[in-house]
């Protein structure tokens, strides 16, 4: 069984991101930077109707626009559109301006149809149907264990609540997009993607092309968060435009496009009943939930995917449960996997009701969690985190903080699977000692290249800057999509295996017993003229799956203006062997900042009357800025014996729940609806004053 080195110079250490200089100097080429000779721009015509029958699309006038080179329809003939922003056609032109002019010149004839964009409207039986053959509200996916009715009746305490989370839109800083170049019936695509092979295979299917005729490249990319696995409609359009125009076409979505059609986290509306014994042991959990994934429904009870369902009850052990999930279709862009699909919604409902229970039972919220948490590592994390955060000193009775600006604290936990597999890699060792490690994975910005360099350097006795890391090309040995927090756990063992085999081969060829470190160059010299190329693959024993993670939040709430300032987040997270400490912590920072957005700012705002999205930009779709980011204290549990486990997703799950709990603790009033805005805070305070 292979093992990780006991002593290492680079693994688990603070090494600098190897592509940092390229990124800050701008020499790193992202998809939007790729500019093949003669490259045209592509843009997409979208539906202006939230629902309509499209009877005719006339491209004639677009063809007259100066600079026009090609146009394609998404679909021939009459068709239906089901949301504002659905793709109709695309044009390729010499300039972006010409594209805009051409789009404006396209004539679309449509018969508008009734639509519904809000969940609360869509579930009414008299609402227009999004899909003719099925009701907007799906059948309930039911799951039962034990006897909930009896357990609730037997409970010493029962708390009830209604919680909601908004549709969160996928807004990676680099929008979705591709540059497609079609030559001699071969297609090269530079893609902003989380899965170069899934883009290749998706395009092969779309275009009826053999997989070996397509090459997908993604050397650098600016974030995906679950929305960038396939080529998408926009990727297929870029390729079709390139074929039609006989020239490379760059089609990057605008921020407006990005807001409409390439994914989001489904909303959730959760009615929860939780019963417990007097000592706080949880006995019964009842959930009646619905949410929308846009035009996709998703009504099953399994977690994951892009559906509206989520894992429930979240984390904590409860013997008697009854869970009902329903999906609601609305005329809006459909959901996609979004960083820890389902989990932030699940966490928000569960952790909120748990704090209500803690208050009612007069039990410390941390102790209540430890009492009911079946996962040993997380119990330890709660203890460690509470100590580090100063929970005992900071936690006060809800609403008891003096003055008009109140402070509060809250906590919440997470779980995630992760794990890895299915990755191959290869190393090319050159006679001068220069080495290149190649792997068909992609770096979402998480530090995959640095991870590869750190492992290579440690195992070969070199330094990270001596390892040339090549990734993001389907001509390299295959790896899976970067999702589910699986990249590090998939790639690291494959690189480990490759390097072990390099050492073995090099020992054989050179006849030297130790080829590492200072012997490396002299061993390589013995290769003669031909470089040594060694394949490797993922092997058992170097990675695992299944993590916990807890977070503590401290907030300040201005009870007169409703303004929430997050003062501090403490995060305790396990992820097995920490490969690259700085990039790992960087992912934790990113997950927490994303969670702050979910807690306080982000929300897709749909206009009921027009069916249109009202906030398709960063002015009104608000994201945390630097001034909104608090002190973040990160504790990574070093558990090298577990091997490599991914960290991308768990760290964003509990943030919003912890912040919302902290706000409730500050105010003595709970805002059961994300985002927690000044409007909601002031309304809740107003209501509590009126009933007091």
């Amino acid at each position, binding site marked *: 069984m292979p093992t990780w080195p006991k002593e290492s110079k680079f693994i688990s250490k603070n090494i600098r991101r190897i592509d940092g200089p390229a990124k800050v100097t701008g020499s790193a080429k992202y998809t939007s930077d790729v500019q093949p000779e003669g490259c045209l721009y592509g843009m997409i015509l979208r539906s202006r109707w939230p629902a309509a029958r499209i009877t005719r699309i006339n491209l004639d006038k677009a063809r007259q626009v100066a600079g026009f080179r090609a146009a394609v329809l998404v679909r021939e003939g009459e068709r239906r559109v089901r949301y504002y922003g659905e793709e109709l056609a695309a044009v390729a032109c010499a300039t972006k301006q010409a594209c805009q002019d051409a789009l404006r010149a396209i004539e679309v004839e449509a018969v508008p149809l009734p639509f519904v964009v809000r969940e609360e409207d869509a579930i009414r039986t008299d609402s227009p149907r999004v899909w003719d053959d099925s009701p907007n509200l799906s059948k309930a996916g039911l799951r039962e264990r034990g006897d909930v009715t009896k357990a609730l009746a037997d409970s010493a305490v029962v708390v009830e609540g209604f919680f909601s989370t908004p549709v969160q839109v996928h807004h990676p800083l680099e929008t979705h997009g591709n540059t497609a170049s079609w030559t001699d019936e071969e297609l090269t695509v530079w893609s902003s993607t989380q899965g170069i092979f899934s883009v290749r295979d998706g395009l092969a299917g779309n275009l009826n092309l053999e997989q070996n005729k397509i090459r997908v490249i993604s050397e650098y990319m600016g974030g995906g968060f679950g929305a960038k696995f396939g080529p998408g409609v926009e990727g297929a359009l870029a390729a079709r435009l390139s074929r039609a125009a006989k020239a490379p076409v760059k089609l990057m979505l605008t921020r*407006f496009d990005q807001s409409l059609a390439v994914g989001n986290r489904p909303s959730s509306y959760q009615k929860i009943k939780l019963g417990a014994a007097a000592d706080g042991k949880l006995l019964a959990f009842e959930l009646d939930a619905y949410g929308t994934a846009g035009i996709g429904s998703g009504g099953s009870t399994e977690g994951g995917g892009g559906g509206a369902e989520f894992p429930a009850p979240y984390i904590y052990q409860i013997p008697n449960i009854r869970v009902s999930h329903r999906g609601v279709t609305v005329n809006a862009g459909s959901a996609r996997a979004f960083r820890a699909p389902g989990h932030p919604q699940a966490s928000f409902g569960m952790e909120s009701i748990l704090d209500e229970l803690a208050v009612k039972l007069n039990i410390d919220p941390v102790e209540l969690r430890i009492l009911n948490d079946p996962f040993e590592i997380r119990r330890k994390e709660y203890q460690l985190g509470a100590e580090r955060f100063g929970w005992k000193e900071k936690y006060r009775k809800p609403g008891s903080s003096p003055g008009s600006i109140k402070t509060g604290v809250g906590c919440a936990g997470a779980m995630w699977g992760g794990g890895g597999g299915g990755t191959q890699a290869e190393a090319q060792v050159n006679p001068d000692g220069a080495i290149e490690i190649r792997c068909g994975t992609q770096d979402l910005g998480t530090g995959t290249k640095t991870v590869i360099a750190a492992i290579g350097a440690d195992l070969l006795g070199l330094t990270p800057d001596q390892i040339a890391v090549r990734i993001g090309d389907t001509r390299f040995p295959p790896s899976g999509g970067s999702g589910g927090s699986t990249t590090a756990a998939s790639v690291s063992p494959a690189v480990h295996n490759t390097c072990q085999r390099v050492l073995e081969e090099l020992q054989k060829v050179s006849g030297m017993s130790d080829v590492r470190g200072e012997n490396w160059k002299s061993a390589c010299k013995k290769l003669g003229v031909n470089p040594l190329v060694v394949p490797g693959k993922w092997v058992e024993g170097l990675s695992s799956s299944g993590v916990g993670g807890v977070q503590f939040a401290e907030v300040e709430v201005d009870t007169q*203006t*409703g303004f929430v300032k997050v003062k501090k987040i403490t995060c305790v997270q396990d992820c097995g062997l920490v490969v690259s400490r700085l990039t790992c912590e960087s992912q934790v920072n990113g997950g927490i900042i994303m969670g702050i957005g979910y807690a306080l700012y982000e929300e897709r705002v749909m206009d009921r009357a027009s069916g249109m999205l009202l906030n398709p930009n960063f002015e009104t779709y608000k994201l945390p800025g630097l001034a*909104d980011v608090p002190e973040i204290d990160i504790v990574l549990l070093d558990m090298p014996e577990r091997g490599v486990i991914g960290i991308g997703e768990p760290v964003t799950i509990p943030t919003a729940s912890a912040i919302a709990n902290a706000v409730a603790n500050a105010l003595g009033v709970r805002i059961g609806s994300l985002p927690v805005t000044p*409007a909601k805070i002031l309304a809740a305070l107003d209501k509590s004053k009126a009933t007091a």
Partner: protein
Amino acid sequence: MKPFSYATALTPESARELAGQEGAYLAGGNDLLGLMKESILAPKLLVNIKPIPGFNAIEQTARSWILGATTTLAQIENHAGLRQAFPGLHQAVAEVGSLQIRNVATIGGNLAQHSRCWYFRHRDLVCWKKGGDTCLAREGENRYHSIFTGCACISPVVSNLSVVLAALGATVHVRRGDQTLKWSINELYAQAWDDPSAHHSLGSGDLILKIEIPADSRRSAYLQASEKAQFDWALVSCAASAQVDQGRFSRSRIVLGAVAPAPYQVNEANQMLDGQAVDEALAAQVADRLLRDATPVAHNQYKVAIAKALVVRTLLLLRS
């Protein structure tokens, strides 16, 4: 964006001549270019007014401070004399956008900027302000809209500077035809109350020349509440000025922003302060009077509470 010509003006007169009725003045461009990109405006000609000599000058005379129309917000923010004379102005400027925006945004542009209403800004929606016949926000998503809603369009003025300049009793010099008009801030926005298609009283071709702020011994203060800590619009903003002698206020003004099409003040509220030693109780009474006639819509009731809190805080800040 539609094709346009571009010209550079070296005098206010040539700027006006060049712009005619169909041109637009380009200063910082933050608002104008956004409107053009969304095809809300399509001027035939852009007249760059930044090179006009002295147009971005900050001058101090015996009786006033004079700020040229293209003075950038960063210039104002970093000007020690202005900061000392008008702390409220400094604070209002510092809250605008981001540093990058303040580096190019001008005082004239900040005052003349158009509505941020998300219905108005939407490329596929038509409301009063775009030649339509309805306010889509009134029955729609109006959390960020006005709470004084007796007018046809309920999108509020969002210029931070308009609020503090109203409190400071500033005069805006506007060239219209051969005349130079001297408008109060009230007059600059009067038309927005009556005409739902208007953002202010400036007609096509009208050019803001400078802003004159009386240099007297009044104190000033500005506060705003937003959802985010920085780089966010005010949900409500508030500015106040008064002469304070041993705790007693005189020549007081208290103004609210982002609650009405124009900076909102009530003479009676101002008068309640004059001659008084302002304390929290009086400040709260003034706040109640200012908000007395508020008629919030479905989703912005909360703004009334914020406005009241800001009035009290701003007045107490002024006293301190």
